[in-house]
């Protein structure tokens, strides 16, 4: 539940950034990408849809995407994402609690955008 809430808050922050944050608008540019963050069992998740400068969303973990960040469980996903730490993500990946489906670079692009918004 906490992960779902975190993803919703993240969406709201990014959505606002699309309107008011010049750096973030520049970052997303005209890219068309679907980024999914979900748990491995697919029960929790959120799809972030970037479409030529706009951002929209869908709840749930069963959507098609260009790249997906897959957490072994919701509590790990919440803990690591809330920490905002690259090192925590690295450790989670090494422990098999996080994996990327699709192209890792798209996830990197997505998280770089989050860092722009959070700084």
């Amino acid at each position: 539940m906490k992960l779902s809430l975190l993803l919703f808050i993240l969406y709201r922050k990014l959505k606002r950034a699309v309107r008011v944050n010049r750096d973030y608008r520049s970052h997303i540019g005209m890219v068309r990408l679907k980024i999914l963050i979900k748990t491995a069992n697919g029960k929790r998740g959120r799809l972030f849809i970037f479409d030529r400068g706009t951002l929209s969303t869908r709840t749930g973990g069963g959507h098609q995407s260009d790249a997906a960040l897959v957490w072994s469980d919701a509590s790990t996903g919440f803990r690591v994402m809330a920490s905002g730490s690259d090192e925590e993500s690295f450790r989670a990946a090494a422990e098999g609690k996080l994996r990327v489906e699709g192209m890792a670079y798209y996830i990197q692009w997505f998280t770089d955008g989050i860092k722009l918004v959070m700084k």
Partner: protein
Amino acid sequence: MADIKAGHLVAKYLKEVEKIDTVFGISGGHIESMLDGFTEYSIRTIDVRHEQAAAMMAHAYSVYTGRPGVCFLTAGPGFTNGLTGIANAYMDNVPLVVLCGRHPLRDDLKGALQEMNQIDMVKPITKWAATCYDARRIPEYMAIAFRNAATGRPGPVFLELPPDILNITIPMESAPMPAKATRNYAVVPADEELTAAADIINNAKQPLFLGGTGVGFSSCSDCLGAFVEKTGIPFMLLNYGRGELPDTHPLSIWDCGNVGLLVTLGQADVIVAAGLRFNWLFMSGDVIPAAAKVVRIDIDPREIDRNRKADAGLVGDIGSVLGRLLPLVEKKDRGEWVRTLRAASYSFIDSELKARLMASDPIHPIRLVAKIQEVVGEDALYVVDGGDTSYFGQVGLFTKQKAGVIGSASGLLGCLGTGIPFGIAAKLARPDTPVVVLNGDGSFGFNSMEFDTMVRHNIPVVVVVNNDCAWGMIKHSQEMSIGGERLQCAELGTRRYDLMVEGLGGHGEFVTKDEEIVPALRRALASGKPACVNVMTDPTVTSPATPLFYQSLKME
């Protein structure tokens, strides 16, 4: 004492002093005397179909042999055609000796055939460029050329030889040969920098060693092996350094690919970078964490602090520096760090690893690469040329050979079209080793007439075309920037490059299905001919290199 044609002096120097066995070029009236010298002194000539390919082959020949490669160009268009290859060698720091004709000195300013100022054109892309005006000084000029090409940071040199001197006969004793070939002299790092570097390395928790072209030209596999095995530092060898230790070495992280490299870089506390520039591929040093300590080793002191201040800077030949560093570093077991970075990297490339194992329709490029690896194996030389193709080839092919996997278009010039010339040079340098070029269909077009060169000289290279019917990297980049509905100059058609090669006398294969890949590759290798395996692959697939490329040119 006998007389000698001055053009023959060029060949005599190449053969007797520098022990050059092979040269690359196209014939021309201005350099005829030099060509006859090649015959006189039994130097093998590989006559190509475009001078840029000659320069690229000579460039690659130096990579595969460790000695300066030599190409010859005739005046005018021969010269201008060669410029791309020379520029590529300059950007890649490769020793290349270019011997070039020019219009006669006698006819200066008279509107002579191919009269142009070649020296001023070539100067910005060479380490040294000169015209020889005296036949008796040809050996001296040749020695200067080789010295400049090979010493310090290597690079291309250009020697212009007018017919006024090539086409005259002089007494042999008036042009004595130097007693010794070109040799490199040691440059040694400062003791305090060695101590500082050793302290940094000994105190590292999560170090990473990155080696570049300087490692390859140092031929330092013994020193490098001893260094990484004593320190336990995981490593990745890039550019012409690749293969100095086998890709299969337990500390090599090539199995983690470029994505793994970026993931690992982000967590490393010490980076040892040897003979490697922090250029755009490393976001000019920005990918290295601010808190990480950096030890730089380079033959050129100007590189030590470039794009990132070094915490210790060691100037010198890589092997020589590592040899001095070795007694100062402590033996460490960093198995836990290596296992962690490997496991993390695999999590990030999970889809790519799975795509290698699964048949797909249309064929995924990484699946094609995996099949090439399965058939050809680790005792081969691979050359990879293209955009997305370069990424897939470099992360998916592994060898035990020195310079075993070369991304010929992945240098600073991003010179598409180098794959076939590099493949030819690889086969000439190591004729007993299978050579496979993985070409994008776009890059294939630049030098595919060199199949004629391969047929004439019986050079059986297998070229696999990863055919997505497009300039894939450009196409996918445009999809991200200007939108897929506005693609411009990005698409190519379905073309039977295999039939083109058959028409030139080679072997052709056309592949559209996963199960056809292996038999086609086997037939191509068994044919004993230059071969083209034209494989239709998924045009929707892009590589992580494409968004990186796109982002690097984004200005707002």
